[in-house]
């Protein structure tokens, strides 16, 4: 889809971000409700017309379906339009995309996109089992495979094909952990080279710190379209100038090339095309890092790095607020954290030197199965 009129373009009015961690004192509904209120307050309290919710695991871990009829009430807006979007790790990005469509089309004037996930409510094994719902149940998880082993299988094959060893993961992982240090809402801020090198292997060749830790979290973004913002305020806006959503086979074994993520490539290309930008115009990349291997394959598949070299990230402005590894991974909320944090980053940059103006943000659901990309411009 090509954008016809810039006045229709979705713009970000405000963001609300809760710290990622173990929020044992509040439930899924309060997490979500609080993030929505924070975002609306940040936006100057416009009246929302709809709340689109990204959530991956609430039906199983909180035993709660139909969040659309629950969370608006806890945000103080009972009765407004709301429903859930589910695409595993890309759920937050899917809800954001829905909110963009709603404001851009004129269907509503102000939409809130919320990503919310409550994972630490139950024991680790139940949380793991819930995460594994993102696999192909009949032919992957029924064999005893898990999300982590899928990543390890790909990582092993990658190292084999390119004659590399697991040391290549360190640079990618530490980039996220180091960037998370400046992020007050991140969970894992204290992992340095020494800690990283002492990690136990979880599923060889991947170690404990190569995989993002599951956590609770909620983030929300208020959107409207540009024409509704007074002209004198438009200069400070962060615009959503492109989005793309693509899928590949759910099961790894059903894909033609296991080391090329077609959904990742297609969704990034579609978003760039819509924004009328080239890859070389992008100066901040927020790439999904549920595991280090995700980053490597995404960088290669999008075309940011050459094949076999996705781990050579030295000068790349990548996951500047910590990514899923550094931030922690509240699955269905992570896609919203990515966008909300990068929107804030662009805003800060704008007030400084305007070096970073265009950001490409991509969330992945399943293991490279669903990819949703957004382009933000300041």
């Amino acid at each position, binding site marked *: 889809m090509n954008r016809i009129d810039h006045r229709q373009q979705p713009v970000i009015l405000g963001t609300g971000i809760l710290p990622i961690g173990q929020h044992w004192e509040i439930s899924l509904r309060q997490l979500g409700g609080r993030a929505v209120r924070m975002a609306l307050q940040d936006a100057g309290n416009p009246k929302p017309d709809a709340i689109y919710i990204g959530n991956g695991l609430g039906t199983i871990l909180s035993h709660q379906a139909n969040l659309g009829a629950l969370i608006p009430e806890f945000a103080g807006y009972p009765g407004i339009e709301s429903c859930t979007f589910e695409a595993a790790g890309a759920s937050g990005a899917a809800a954001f995309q829905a909110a963009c469509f709603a404001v851009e089309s004129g269907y509503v004037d102000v939409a809130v996109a919320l990503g919310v996930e409550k994972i630490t409510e139950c024991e680790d*094994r139940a949380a793991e*089992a819930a995460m594994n719902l993102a696999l192909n149940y009949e032919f992957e998880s029924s064999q005893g495979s898990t999300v982590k082993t899928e990543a390890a299988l790909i990582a*092993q094959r990658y190292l084999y094909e390119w004659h590399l060893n697991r040391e290549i993961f360190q640079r990618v992982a530490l980039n996220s952990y180091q960037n998370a240090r400046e992020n007050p809402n991140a969970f894992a801020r204290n992992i340095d080279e020494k800690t990283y090198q002492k990690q136990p292997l979880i599923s060889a060749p991947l170690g404990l710190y190569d995989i993002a830790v599951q956590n609770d979290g909620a983030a929300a973004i208020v959107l409207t379209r540009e024409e509704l913002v007074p002209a004198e305020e438009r200069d400070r806006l962060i615009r959503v100038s492109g989005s793309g959503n693509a899928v590949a086979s759910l099961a790894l074994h059903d894909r033609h090339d296991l080391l090329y993520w077609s959904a990742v490539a297609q969704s990034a290309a579609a978003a760039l095309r819509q924004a009328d930008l080239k890859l070389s115009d992008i100066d901040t990349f927020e790439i999904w890092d549920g595991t280090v291997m995700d980053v490597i394959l995404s960088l290669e598949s999008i075309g940011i790095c050459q094949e076999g070299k996705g781990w050579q990230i030295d000068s790349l402005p990548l996951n500047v607020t910590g990514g899923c590894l550094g931030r922690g991974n509240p699955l269905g909320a992570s896609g919203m954290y990515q966008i909300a944090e990068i929107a804030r980053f662009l805003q800060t940059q704008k007030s400084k030197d305007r070096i970073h103006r265009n950001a490409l943000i991509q969330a992945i659901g399943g293991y490279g199965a669903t990819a949703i990309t957004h382009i933000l411009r300041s």
Partner: protein
Amino acid sequence: MESPRHWRLKKQRYALIGEECPHCKAKIFPPRDVCPECGLEAKTAYQFSGKGKVYSYTTINEAPSGFQDMSPYAIALVKLEEGPIVTAQLTDLGGESIWVGMPVEMVTRKLRNDGDERGVILYGYKFRPAFQA
């Protein structure tokens, strides 16, 4: 224990029965309604030989529920002789180390239990090292 599901999948799990596309002759596993290669209707049953090679592998130390008794165990992507790749456990390794390209063959083994609910056991395919002639 989801009886209809396991009953429905028994041909695949016990005998590695997939499909051969009547239009483009692609070998398909698991079977489906539409051929992933040519997009036309797929419906002709085809029994795979069960022979293949390890495409990639890893070991799982923290097993998901229903699989804890077997932990740790090896999971592999096995590339079948006929083309498709399947996800499966490796078994009967007897201390043998796994390598990419290792020849393996399908065997039927216990996949999981039902978490001690009724003692029902689910069987299905795993792969073991194949002796080379």
